[in-house]
């Protein structure tokens, strides 16, 4: 076999090995997306009912509470960034990080200090590499988050909210995560968790909110709170944060798997393309070799014939 051909064959082998791996990763990611999507759907009823309850208290009482009241001059804001532990997911992590940077710039521009809370190894290493401080970070559960994980993440956030800003507390909590729209579209978004925003554009959760609010206005102040409106709000606040964080973690996980699937699909397609063109080149090299051999044989035979014709004479 010619040297040229051997090189092509070797490259084809290595690319097909890569293709096998990316194909497997694509399939794993595809099955995980479905599971993650199911989890998102399963957590929705709780989130919806909880938002309804919060609305009921917000509309049914006029007490001031960090859950519902905006601070006049916010000093510090907490930003929770959700990334993944592993890469190979296209622009998934860098999009979320970019969104965080934009949000941080906006908040600093408005005169707020920003505390970063980071979930996922990719985000942690981003901040670590730039030697920027991180208030708290978590890794290890981004592929398959549980409610206990969400509680763990929410606890220091709630803690910071309950503290005075002079003691390092925060006035606002923002969250940056990747929203799952479909297998093909996921977008990095930033949302203000607390104080609650009555924002119409912020899709479904807010819509439910708005709807419930309208309804609530009819029954306003009819609600009976136990032990008291204040007590209920105090108990609701952490649950609300936890459930929103949980939802964000689940959506991010689903987005991550979808992004991985897409990235691996294009890697597989790429490998296929590469194998095709390499095979063409290898064929060409083989053909050239055969042609060369034939012409060598023919040339040799001719030389022999010429020689024997000469000696006959």
């Amino acid at each position, binding site marked *: 076999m010619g040297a040229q051909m051997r090189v092509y064959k070797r490259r084809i082998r290595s690319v097909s090995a890569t293709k096998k791996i990316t194909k497997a990763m694509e399939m794993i990611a595809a099955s995980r997306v479905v599971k993650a999507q199911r989890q998102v759907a*399963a*957590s929705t009823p*709780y989130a919806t009912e909880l938002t309804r309850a919060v609305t009921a208290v917000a509309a049914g009482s006029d007490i001031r509470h960090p859950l519902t009241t905006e601070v006049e001059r916010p000093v510090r804001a907490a930003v929770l960034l959700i990334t993944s532990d592993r890469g190979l997911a296209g622009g998934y992590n860098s999009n979320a990080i970019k969104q965080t940077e934009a949000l941080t710039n906006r908040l600093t521009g408005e005169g707020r200090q920003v505390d970063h809370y980071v979930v996922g190894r990719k985000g942690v290493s981003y901040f670590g590499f730039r030697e920027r401080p991180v208030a708290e970070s978590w890794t290890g559960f981004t592929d398959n988050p549980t409610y206990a994980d969400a509680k763990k993440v929410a606890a220091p956030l709630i803690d910071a909210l309950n503290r005075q800003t002079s003691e390092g507390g925060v006035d606002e909590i923002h969250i940056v995560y990747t929203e799952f729209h479909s297998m093909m579209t996921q977008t990095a978004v930033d949302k203000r968790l607390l104080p609650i925003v009555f924002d119409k554009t912020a899709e479904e959760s807010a819509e439910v909110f708005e709807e419930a609010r309208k309804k609530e206005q009819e029954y306003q102040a009819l609600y009976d709170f136990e032990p008291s409106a204040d007590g*209920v709000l105090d108990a609701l606040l952490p*649950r609300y944060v936890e459930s929103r964080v949980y939802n964000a973690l689940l959506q991010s996980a689903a987005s991550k798997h979808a992004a991985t699937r897409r990235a691996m699909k294009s890697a597989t397609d790429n490998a296929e393309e590469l194998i095709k063109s390499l095979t063409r080149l290898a064929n060409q090299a083989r053909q050239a070799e055969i042609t060369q051999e034939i012409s060598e044989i023919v040339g040799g035979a001719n030389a022999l014939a010429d020689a024997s014709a000469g000696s006959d004479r």
Partner: protein
Amino acid sequence: MAELHVELVAADRSVWSGEATRVIARTPSGDIGIMPGHQPLLTVLESGPVTIRTAGGGDGGTVVAAVHGGFISFADNKLSLLAEIAELSEEIDVERAERALERAKSDADAEAERRAEVRLLAVAGVR
């Protein structure tokens, strides 16, 4: 008989939903019974068994669930039971709960002990 709609949801799934004639749950100030047409209510839920008398067919059946913390909200004849963790009595593994209770007692883990107790209470409540 009048009925109310009940949704029992845990953080990660919907546990039970259907029509009921009466729901009994535990709040910080004691057990509360909710029947159709109750005043709109929003209450903190203590961990404890929740008893749901289901509607339909004479006396109807009973669904008991172990609920660990959460809320009740009632409005519009619709009752939402929100719990971080909720288990129906038939899903509870009695032996496991008993073992957990023993373990919690020996470790003096009050929270785990309460959880296991609530589970056993929920199972006892249905029998």
